[in-house]
């Protein structure tokens, strides 16, 4: 394999504590190396910023609901198509790009690893086919567990060991990565025309509460010792006053400690925190509760979060929180699509326009930025847009601009139609913190990698780690004349390496790399009861046979990378 040396760049690497020192980064055989031979190809990074490849912890980029969005929103591709160019195949779509465009856009921004945040287990084969067709970036998918009939039945009887055995089986069958929970109990309740808006609302028929599901899945997760923690989209998303449900959810993690061999410290990851930090009783007195939520997270080290920044774009919302999407279409009257996934989950899709002229949207924008600005430890708070729910992931450079420049935030605040409302309902106008490049590397590299249990592999530039490296046309020694220069620099990398292969040069794709599908292979003790339960449910309820369920083989996962866990 080729050798490279990236010379004289300003390196930001939280894994080694390097804060912008001029350093050479050597790449050999796909890994970061101590040194390389004189034959190594030299990449001149003088006056540039060098970081590890970024890690996306939560995005909806593959699978049936993403594709449903693509199918029912042809207008999303209108005027956004890019023709074939060099290595690049044609692509299209703004908020729900094609698989190829998804891979290219992530790579061009310096991202080399991404997590698909909600995989319906029954459709894992489809998820993996799309992952396979997304070039360059390493990907993994989180199967959803929070409304799954097996989980609800086992946890009702407090059978943690059986829950864990079932989770292990499902992760293996679907080639999944982590335990994802979406509106626990609420999506199942919606099958009965109901929802769970607090952690104590009982799920019809199953007679279990969201609190019991959340605690049970944390326990199952730690029983197995998975690389990532239970990853939750709590109940009551997006409603005024929902922060109380969020705090109730976070409190359920009290007393639990992470148990794993991957260096992960949290037991609960709260996703798209922005959507869960709302105060007020209606859309008129809607206000930010970012402080209340981040105060709690700051004080409790066993929690990590991601932001879910609103980017003020037209986008497509999609979530396994079926009742929420139905609620949303009632608010904006735009087209609604829904899918039920037998025994397991559901999903809804609705287009949404975050308009800077609507006060609620502007307040949501502010809350999304308040959260990272209030977080004391950037290793526990990661930048996301919950793509495409709060905005497309292609807007990360803009979010970075807002975080790194108080002036850029001020410009945006002044551009809002209801500026006074934004200033009275949030604290964004009083915040002068500017995220440093080192903190940015924590929030987009080292932090999410650690939370995902991948800290030995990616998110850093220590010798022995995967050679995922991004070089930005950004000189940290020069003052920023115009905040838009930040956005420009982080939009298109000067160079990107993925596992030692150069995939981007001067903003263009030059290789499709060596994309891998990450999954977690957990060994558990033989559990005849769970094996029998699975068999029985397939015979009794599923519309497909167990033989057709599993995602495996070259067609679905041509280049797998399994993280081995022994829970026997």
């Amino acid at each position: 394999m080729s050798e490279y040396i990236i010379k004289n760049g300003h390196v930001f690497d939280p894994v080694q504590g390097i804060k912008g020192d001029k350093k050479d980064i050597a790449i050999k055989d796909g890994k970061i190396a101590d040194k390389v031979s004189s034959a190594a190809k030299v990449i001149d990074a003088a006056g540039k910023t060098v970081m590890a490849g970024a890690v996306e912890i939560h995005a909806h980029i593959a699978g049936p609901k993403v594709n449903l969005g693509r199918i029912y929103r042809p207008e999303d591709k209108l005027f956004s198509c890019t023709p074939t160019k060099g290595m690049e195949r044609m692509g299209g779509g703004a908020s729900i790009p094609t698989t190829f465009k998804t891979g290219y856009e992530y790579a061009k921004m310096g991202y080399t690893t991404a997590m698909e945040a909600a995989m319906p287990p029954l459709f894992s084969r489809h998820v993996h086919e799309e992952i396979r067709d997304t070039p360059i970036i390493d990907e993994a998918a989180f199967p959803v567990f929070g409304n799954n009939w097996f989980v609800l039945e086992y946890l009702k009887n407090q059978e943690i060991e059986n829950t864990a055995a079932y989770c292990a089986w499902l992760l293996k069958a679907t080639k999944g990565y982590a335990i994802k929970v979406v509106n626990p109990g609420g999506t199942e309740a919606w099958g009965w025309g109901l929802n769970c808006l607090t952690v104590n609302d009982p799920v019809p028929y199953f007679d279990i509460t969201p609190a019991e599901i959340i605690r049970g899945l944390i326990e199952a997760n730690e029983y197995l010792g998975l690389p990532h923690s239970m990853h939750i989209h709590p109940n009551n998303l997006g409603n005024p006053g929902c922060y109380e449900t969020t705090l109730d959810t976070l409190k359920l993690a009290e007393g639990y400690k992470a148990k794993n061999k991957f260096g992960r410290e949290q037991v609960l990851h709260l996703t798209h925190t922005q959507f869960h930090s709302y105060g007020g009783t209606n859309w008129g007195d809607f206000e930010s509760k970012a402080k209340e939520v981040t105060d709690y997270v700051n004080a409790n080290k066993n929690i990590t979060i991601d932001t879910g920044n609103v980017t003020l774009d037209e986008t497509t919302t999609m979530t396994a929180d079926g009742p929420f999407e139905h609620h949303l279409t009632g608010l904006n009257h735009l087209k609604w699509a829904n899918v039920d996934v037998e025994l397991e989950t559901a999903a809804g899709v609705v287009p949404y326009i975050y308009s800077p002229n609507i006060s609620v949207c502007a307040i949501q924008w502010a809350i999304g930025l308040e959260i990272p600005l209030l977080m004391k430890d950037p290793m526990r708070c990661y930048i996301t847009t919950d793509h495409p729910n709060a905005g497309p992931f292609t807007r990360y450079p803009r979010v970075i601009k807002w975080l790194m420049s108080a002036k850029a935030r001020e410009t945006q605040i002044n551009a809002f139609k209801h500026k006074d409302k934004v200033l009275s309902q949030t604290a964004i106008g009083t915040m002068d913190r500017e995220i440093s490049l080192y903190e940015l590397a924590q929030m987009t590299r080292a932090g999410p990698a650690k939370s995902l249990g991948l800290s030995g592999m990616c998110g850093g530039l220590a010798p022995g780690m995967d050679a995922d490296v991004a070089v930005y046309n950004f000189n940290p020694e020069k003052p920023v004349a115009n905040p838009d220069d930040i956005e420009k620099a982080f939009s298109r990398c000067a160079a990107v390496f993925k596992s030692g292969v150069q995939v981007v040069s001067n903003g263009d794709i030059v290789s499709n790399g060596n994309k891998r599908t990450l999954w977690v292979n957990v060994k558990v003790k033989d559990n005849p009861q769970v094996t029998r339960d699975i068999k029985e449910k397939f015979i009794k309820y599923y519309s497909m046979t167990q033989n057709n369920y599993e995602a495996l083989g070259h067609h679905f996962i041509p280049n797998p990378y399994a993280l081995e866990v022994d829970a026997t």
Partner: protein
Amino acid sequence: METVTITLKNAPALYLEADTISPDAFAGKTAAKIAELPVFEGNVPSTLGKYFEVSGDAGATAADTKIIVKGDVKKVKYIGFKMTAGELVIEKTADQYVGAWMKGGKILARGDVGAFAATAMKGGELVVEGNAGNYLGAAYRGDWRGMSGGKILVKGNAGSDIGMYMLGGEIVVNGNADVHVMTHAEGGKTIIKGNAASKLGGQMVDGTIIIFGSIEVMMPGFKPNGEVELEVDGTKAKFAHFIGDMGERHKKKKGVVVYGNLYKKI
């Protein structure tokens, strides 16, 4: 105003996507430069000059530019695409998307126009002396933002699904219209001087349909609301008034529910 005449000399084998035939793209260019403007034949990039003889230089701005399109352009799409000002005359029948997304200026089509003419039109004027195809003044596939301004006059007949998701502006059809008129509309007005087939105003939230001739099948979601005397396009007459679509959501204005209106000449 300067006039540029383009005359088809080599008919394309496949459909030609010529979204550069507009006063905006021509403005400030000489005939030679205009001939270099990009077009697609199928998926092959090409130039306008390969298919058209270009004579005359354009004005400095779109508003100062008039384009006359001569020859058989029934396999040419997107004429007048996104135009904002100036004039465009198409002498013979053109294919789909004439005047699509147009914002201003005037298009006169002396023959027929294909489907999707004036898609999501925002302003300006489109006059069709022949017939218009389906989806005249409609929203793009999947989109909920249809025609929002401007005026369309069709002297012949119009196809199906005209004014779908219409938000504003006016469509006048002197002849007949096929099924689906102003489906999902939330504003705007469509006048049909001839007859209509069926499904007028399906899922209509707001807006107005006026029909002079017969309606083959009336939507069950429309409710009789008395008779009114109206003056439409200089004609004074009595019309039966219907409101609907009753199966759709409706906004309130000053406490009063606003419905879509359908007037049928008695």
